[in-house]
């Protein structure tokens, strides 16, 4: 039995949905960050699956760009989180409310 493309897309869709809900619902910045990475990895999975079933290499190539960009984003993001933690002693989004007043 071979696994069809729909199975891959279903898993990718689930991962994306879990990530999206994590970003919207969780309070801890680091968990939000992990959820964002999960969304990007869902995209990567779908890309590789499409690339395999369509017999084109563009998808595989795109994955490398996404991984690189995600690494850059994490580097900047963690730096901002650390700088913020030093000032506020918290990384919970519901306590980060010095603006909007």
């Amino acid at each position: 039995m071979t696994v069809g493309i729909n199975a891959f897309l279903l898993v990718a869709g689930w991962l994306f949905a879990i990530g999206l809900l994590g970003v919207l619902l969780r309070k801890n910045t680091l968990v939000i960050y992990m959820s964002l990475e999960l969304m990007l990895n869902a995209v990567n999975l779908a890309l590789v699956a499409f690339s395999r079933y369509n017999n084109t290499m563009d998808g595989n190539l795109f994955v490398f760009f996404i991984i690189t960009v995600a690494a850059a984003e994490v580097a900047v993001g963690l730096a901002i989180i650390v700088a913020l933690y030093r000032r506020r002693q918290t990384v919970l989004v519901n306590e980060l409310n010095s603006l909007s007043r």
Partner: protein
Amino acid sequence: MNEILAEFLRGYTATNQWLAILPEILLALLALSLLAVEMASPKAARAQVGRVAFYGQLFILAVCLIGCFTGPATTGAEPLFSGMIEQSGTTQFMRVFFLLCSLFVSYLGGIYLERQPLARTEFHHLVLLVAAGMMLLVQSAHFVMLFVALETVTVAFYVLVAYGRNSVGSLEAGLKYLIMGALSSAILLFGIVLLYGVAGNPALAASSSDSLQYSALAEFISLHDGNLLVRLGALLVVAGICFKIGAVPFQIWVPDVYQGAPTPVTSFLAVASKAAGFVVLLQLVQGPFAGLGALLVPVLSIVAAVTILFGNCAAVVQGNLKRLMGLSGIAHAGYLLLGVIAVASGVAWAEGAVLFYLFTYLLGSFAVFAVMTFAAGTDDTDQQISHYQDFAKEQPFLGGVLAIGLGSLAGIPPLGGFIGKLFLFIAAFQAGLYGLLGVAILGVVISIYYYFGWIREAFFSHYNETVPTKTAILPSMRDRLLLGFLAAASLLLGLYPAALSLLP
């Protein structure tokens, strides 16, 4: 061996297209050389870095303008780098637009950094990189190129927004922008992947092996405009871009980020980032998504109507000026969406109207943000309307520039903003968007109320006898020249709109 090498080199020179992106390469080199200048020069001379950045950008602007006028005919889109980049009259105009933006931001950044104990070089470095990234972004004709350019811009913006490391507000704004920006990138990417997968499916008609390329995608979508994956993918891509332009329901980040970011960065976000988003949206609507008008026009119409109403109504009760600029910026995004919808429903000249509006928005916004930079105290996030009491009496020049900038944003007749709005509304009228037009005009009426509240505070507020503490810096001769240029250009475009030949 030598023949093979010669053959290779001949092939290389025949396909050598690097000169086409000369301004971007020069910007990146200038950005790197700033770091070198900082390392090589003694500590006392480091203030020179801002000057190097400013004059370097002036030089690149000249190169870009010469390229515009003497380069190859810019009538049709011209594919370069095997279809990764396409240059047209629109992209040439936007390159000059982004260079102007980065020039103003560098200049205002210099003024901001004088008052803050922060590193200078990195600020200018990042501004240059963002400008180069945006210039590539609007030229991209391939989704990989689009994504990489977009992320170059966005990651650099994360750092710029959080640049005020000594202020909690700036760091918080940086974190919020980071989360929202990464979320929007992921949504955009998922849409791209769906389009890539369905358009590359060999079982479907007109499928392409290069299904990330705009033109290949356009051909496919025009045949399969009812396909569920195509529709979902296109909606997700548009949603990702709506995050960048701050359209409802993806506008939640705008007020907080605009308030927390350093004022020059706020102006950069408000003008350049929004303009980049709109030009990408225009290109998508005219290119790959041209066959999806029946889906996109109703969706974008609802988004535009809600965006205009939300932005204006929320701005009315806002006392913090940076949040006010953010919320009114949301409303401006709504007016600009009118032009995009007109393009999507077949009024081709509306593209020129959008570009014209963006240019008047640049002039008006930078005039206002420049005055805000001069008038701000040491706490950059705290700029209230009440701080502008008696402002025009103490600083008549800045007050005048503020009035012209705000008047242009509100769309008062002799100024550029009025003509920009007029063109957009005529385009919407020709496209038959009467309901939307009514909402937009209502929005403009509301916006006059809060813009003039600010002007009234600056000019006619004599009810309090105690003079507030003076924090505004007096502008030097060079500052006056720059501000005067912004105000005069706003006035010129209002009186003589043909100065910018964007409309046929």
